[in-house]
């Protein structure tokens, strides 16, 4: 309730509301100051005195104590991991006290979504959608954001936007939780003391004035990748204002390989845009282009379009229809798992492979490979050549420049340029070598050349290579009693590791709170449109930059409009502006292809250096859930099982099964939770480049032998309640010259003898010879399209206790879902989308380890070709060295003969007229009999009170159309019944049947590969009916005669016969 008030205060746009204080009677008392006391002090002043009062207050040590107290919360107790939010409520109230500040703080003059009186065209209870983009690395993901009465609640993809085509990824889906993150920084602080924005502006101006004379000598700006023209423009204008100032960039999880590779190949920075849809044969050189990196959502969509299988097509057409994907990679990625052929190679050997391939294609140079890899290479080379102009070679983000250059050369040689990929001017506003840029900054700091350092968004103290010792550069030096940098200003959403060592910290606004722009992977200029006024006293990087400029206080809104106006000289601005806001992008702003002349020959490359065979290779990769650490405090992403390992809440040192055997690293399944929850794994010390981390070791089938993956983004020391001290910090052993690949003798790995419990939601990856996930090859499929149903022993209809009884007709609408296993790449977008849409709680590591996570849709990961065991997944099997990997999303199957319903004693779960398997939460008494009797185990139970009922921000997050479940009731996927009912209401109003595609479930909407299709099975022309008509279509566990409404289309791989024969 406090949160609501607070929000309104920000939303109301006229001054009157600003000093509206909470109706809590204040009482002053001794002892540590509490909020009542704060309010009392505030109330005792008149409006005019207001913020002076606060300034005084801010000086008050008790008050500081109150604000800087780390929220004391209960340690997770034996049986209950829930968070004690009481102290939290206090903090909420604290920000209330500051609401008074808005009197002197700025108020946005632009009207956005919020309203005081109900505006026209808005009906209470009906959500509105606004187009915006989420800037992410060298990409901007086009979004439509659902807003309920001014609260952004759900992220959807923007169908008109080239980077998303209506889909999203897990990060975008979860980003809305970041907005409401209770741990966000809320005000400007100096040395940790509350300051007002205006005092910051004053000192910024003071600094600027002081620099005037010295032309900005010693003024440095550090940012991540910037694809925003306006932001770049602002920085540029500062750099012109202060010619001696410098702009550095550091993006920890994006390699320089792509940039430098382009430079190496073409002599200048260029951006590469791929067209997987046009490629018949694709070779990925350690590139996870379907799962991460710029444009991956788009690429996944395009790739999946070539995975359509239409059984009625002629055999030859199928082959032309279905593309073939080869992946060479050290550790299984989403892309690798989807591949038709996958070759595990150590990261350093990928370059050798690229060189060898180039050589094979007659581009000169050479690369030594193992015989097996050699053979593989031959087949791939042949295949590529066979498909000149329709093939594609993609180099990985984390591969060195040489590999990228070779990829460019190979693509050129295969005449792919312009066909399956094209080059454009860089999307980054100022492409530089980030490592060198950061190195230069550090050198200058050491040389004492830096006076003022402005850090925008990034967190170098945590992410910089440890040999740069960035922290020491900011920290006050006890010996010399001095600081290397006089003033450090840090702008970030959370008060993090870097903020701690900064003088000033400006709380940064979330992208849903600010105006801005960003370029997508193909250069499309997109507009960031805020959906809500800042929840707290946060500011955008643009405002901070403006504070140093000649016209401080200029609003992002104006800056943006100015820029666009400059963009199109036509005097008339409003119309295109409105259109832009509506579309979320500037029409036709995508970069035109440039033809780049190749100035590179493979032969000219210096000899490659690769990890000695006897050494262990350590590689660094961004974590698939928390990325470089920026999402560490996001509960949804923390609890999201990682696509391949299915680990949650932790990262682990990933090791191949064989290597694990060699190093005698083992797992043991815990008795509580077991395979579906808790696995103890050996803890190892990793001594690397004169530093050490302690990590839990985890076996990953399909990983290259002798490779240890150290996922980045964990081990945060100051991320917030959720993210602090989870996992281990891989940055601690990451140096500037081993940025992506390090190597050491196997003695670098020492068993500590301890075991660490990891929360793994699916430890058992062996199908035990059951047809759970039907797979086949294109060859098989051509011979027998019905292979998936051949061995299913479907019981005859008359085999029933109620023979002759009339069955339920479901004659109006018959909702059903088809999931194409041929397309799903396990990217997890659907899982988070479902969590966001359906108010699914986060339960915490302890409960996940007890097998109690709540996801309504889970993605099962199975390996093929494994010998059936008696369920002992730990047993080593050489097939684990490189097993075919498949993903299977499992939501409620909505069975027509639902086994769960028959056993419910109170009829809390029953069928609707449209055949939905409905849960009636308020009737459920929680016997859990339904879950026991559910063969798919898709039901989820509120064993404790998992839902957070107190934290005000999280209340804003909830979807008002979905019940918030409490303790003791069963819940499960509902096919997003709220969306069905919305469509139903519309259709009744229009008195027309519901059109196919009018209802899109959250998971379907988020899916980049269109693997999930929902619709009316009675409508013969619906997409779902067509899919179910395919012979590939099969029911999971059909022999149980539960008649699931959700069915699967068997996965079909398109292997190269040449390699199959082996």
């Amino acid at each position, binding site marked *: 309730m406090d949160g609501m008030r607070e929000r309104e205060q920000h939303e109301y746009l006229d001054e009157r509301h600003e000093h509206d204080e909470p109706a809590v009677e204040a009482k002053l008392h001794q002892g540590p100051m509490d909020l009542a006391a704060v309010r009392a002090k505030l109330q005792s002043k008149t409006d005019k005195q207001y913020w002076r009062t606060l300034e005084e207050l801010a000086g008050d040590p008790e008050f500081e104590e109150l604000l800087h107290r780390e929220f004391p919360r209960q340690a997770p107790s034996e049986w209950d991991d829930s968070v004690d939010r009481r102290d939290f409520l206090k903090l909420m109230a604290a920000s209330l006290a500051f609401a008074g500040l808005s009197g002197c703080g700025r108020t946005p003059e632009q009207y956005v979504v919020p309203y005081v009186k109900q505006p026209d065209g808005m009906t209470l209870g009906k959500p509105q959608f606004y187009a915006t983009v989420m800037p992410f690395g060298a990409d901007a993901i086009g979004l439509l954001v659902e807003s309920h009465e001014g609260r952004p609640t759900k992220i959807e993809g923007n169908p008109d936007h080239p980077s998303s085509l209506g889909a999203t990824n897990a990060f975008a889906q979860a980003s809305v939780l970041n907005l409401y993150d209770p741990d966000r920084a809320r005000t400007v602080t100096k040395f940790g003391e509350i300051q007002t924005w205006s005092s910051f502006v004053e000192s910024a101006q003071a600094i600027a004035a002081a620099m005037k004379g010295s032309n900005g000598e010693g003024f440095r700006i550090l940012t991540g990748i910037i694809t925003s023209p306006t932001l770049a423009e602002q920085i540029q204008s500062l750099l012109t204002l202060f010619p001696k100032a410098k702009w550095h960039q550091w993006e920890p999880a994006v390699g320089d390989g792509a940039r430098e590779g382009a430079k190496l190949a073409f002599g200048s920075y260029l951006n590469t845009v791929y067209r997987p849809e046009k490629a018949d044969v694709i070779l990925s050189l350690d590139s996870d282009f379907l799962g991460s990196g710029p444009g991956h959502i788009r690429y996944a969509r395009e790739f999946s379009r070539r995975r359509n299988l239409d059984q009625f097509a002629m055999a030859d057409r199928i082959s032309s229809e279905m593309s073939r994907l080869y992946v060479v990679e050290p550790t299984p990625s989403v892309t690798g798992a989807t591949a038709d052929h996958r070759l595990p190679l150590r990261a350093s050997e990928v370059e050798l492979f690229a060189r060898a391939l180039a050589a094979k294609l007659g581009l000169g140079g050479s690369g030594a490979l193992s015989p097996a890899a050699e053979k593989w290479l031959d087949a791939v080379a042949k295949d590529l050549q066979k498909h000149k102009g329709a093939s594609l070679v993609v180099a990985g983000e984390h591969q060195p420049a040489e590999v990228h250059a070779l990829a460019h050369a190979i693509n050129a040689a295969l005449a792919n340029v312009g066909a399956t990929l094209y080059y454009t001017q860089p999307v980054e506003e100022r492409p530089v070598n980030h490592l060198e840029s950061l190195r230069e900054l550090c050198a200058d700091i050491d040389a004492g050349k830096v006076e003022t350092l402005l850090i925008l968004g990034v967190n170098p103290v945590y992410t910089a290579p440890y040999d740069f010792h960035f922290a020491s550069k900011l920290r006050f030096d006890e010996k010399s009693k001095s600081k290397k940098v006089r003033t450090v200003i840090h702008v970030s959403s959370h008060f993090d590791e870097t903020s701690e060592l900064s003088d000033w910290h400006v709380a940064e606004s979330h992208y849903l709170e600010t105006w801005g722009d960003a370029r997508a992977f193909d250069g499309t200029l997109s507009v960031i449109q805020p959906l809500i006024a800042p929840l707290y006293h946060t500011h955008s990087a643009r405002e901070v930059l403006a504070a140093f400029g000649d016209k401080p206080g200029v609003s992002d809104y104006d800056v943006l409009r100015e820029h666009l106006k400059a963009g199109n000289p036509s005097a008339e601005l409003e119309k295109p502006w409105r259109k832009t806001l509506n579309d979320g992008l500037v029409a036709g702003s995508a970069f035109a292809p440039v033809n780049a002349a190749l100035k590179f020959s493979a032969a000219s490359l210096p000899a490659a250096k690769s990890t000695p065979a006897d050494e262990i290779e350590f590689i660094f990769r961004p974590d698939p859930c928390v990325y470089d650490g920026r999402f560490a405090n996001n509960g949804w992403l923390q609890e999201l099982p990682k696509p391949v390992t299915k680990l949650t809440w932790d990262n682990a040192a990933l090791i191949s099964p064989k290597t694990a055997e060699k190093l005698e690293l083992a797992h043991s399944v815990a008795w509580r939770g077991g395979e579906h929850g808790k696995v103890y794994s050996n803890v190892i010390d990793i001594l690397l480049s004169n530093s050490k981390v302690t990590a839990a070791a985890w076996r990953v089938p399909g990983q290259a032998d002798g490779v240890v993956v150290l996922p980045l983004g964990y081990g945060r020391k100051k991320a917030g309640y959720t993210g602090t001290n989870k996992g281990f910090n891989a940055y601690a052993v990451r140096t500037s010259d081993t940025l992506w690949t390090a190597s050491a003798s196997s003695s670098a790995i020492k068993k500590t003898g301890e075991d660490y419990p990891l929360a793994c939601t699916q430890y058992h990856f062996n199908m035990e010879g059951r047809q759970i996930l039907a797979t086949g090859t294109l060859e098989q499929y051509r011979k027998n399209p019905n292979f998936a149903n051949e061995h299913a022993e479907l019981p005859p209809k008359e085999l029933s206790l*109620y023979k002759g009884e009339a069955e339920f007709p479901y004659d109006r609408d018959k909702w059903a879902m088809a999931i194409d296993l041929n397309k799903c790449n396990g990217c997890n977008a659907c899982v988070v989308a479902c969590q966001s849409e359906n108010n699914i709680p986060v339960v915490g590591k302890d409960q996940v380890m007890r097998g109690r996570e709540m996801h309504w849709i889970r993605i099962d990961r199975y390996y093929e070709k494994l010998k059936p065991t008696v369920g002992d997944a730990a047993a080593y099997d050489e097939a684990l060295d490189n097993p075919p990997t498949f993903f299977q999303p499992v939501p409620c199957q909505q069975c027509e*003969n*639902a086994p*769960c*319903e*028959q056993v419910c004693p109170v*009829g809390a779960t*029953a*069928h609707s007229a449209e055949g939905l398997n409905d849960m009636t939460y308020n009737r459920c008494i929680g016997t859990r009999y339904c879950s026991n009797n559910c063969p798919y185990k898709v039901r989820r139970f509120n064993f404790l009170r998992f839902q957070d009922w107190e934290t005000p921000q999280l209340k804003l997050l909830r979807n008002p159309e979905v019940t918030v479940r409490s303790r003791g009731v069963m819940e499960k996927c509902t096919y997003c019944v709220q969306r069905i009912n919305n469509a139903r209401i519309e259709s009744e109003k229009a008195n027309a049947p519901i059109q196919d595609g009018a209802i899109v479930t959250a998971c379907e909407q988020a899916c980049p590969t269109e693997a999930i299709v929902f619709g009316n099975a009675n409508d013969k022309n619906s997409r779902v009916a067509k899919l179910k008509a395919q012979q590939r279509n099969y029911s999971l566990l059909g022999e149980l005669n539960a*008649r699931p409404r959700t069915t699967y289309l068997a996965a079909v791989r398109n292997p190269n016969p040449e390699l199959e024969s082996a």
Partner: protein
Amino acid sequence: MHLQRSHIYGVMGEFGEPEELIHAVEKIRAAGYRRVNAYSPFPVEGLSEAMGLKRNMVPFICLLGGLAGGVGGFFFQYWAAAIAYPMNVGGRPLNSWPAFIPVTFELTILGASLAAVFGMLALNKLPQPHHPVFNVHRFTHASSDRFFVCIEAKDPKFHLEEVARLLQNVHVHHITEVSDD
């Protein structure tokens, strides 16, 4: 005499062995007394016959109870599942009669047992905290090791001396007058 009669409930004789009791009862009934009752610490074999007791109503009441429970039980389930609140439960027909059998069975048993017990108590007019026979001091032994026969004053043939004489003839241990208040 008439006055007296109105004050006494009957005359009670006490025996030490069940055989004596049966013998006495036979004698008394042979003498034409009908309002006679015997009291024993445990059910004495042959006593009922001697008393000329016929089949009783308890089994019949029990049968009714069982029928009520069973028939009522089944149709209640049918009504609840098919008429009152029809729901599609796991695609099973509304009248999934095989699934209703167990409850029907249990309710049959329940009805029958309740009828049997409460029928028995009702017919025995129990609970009945007070009864004239309790006025007899030695009657406490009726619940441990003694056997009693009581010829009630309501019997048309009842005459104090006659009854006393008759009882003496069957070697009674004690004779007591049972007062009626």
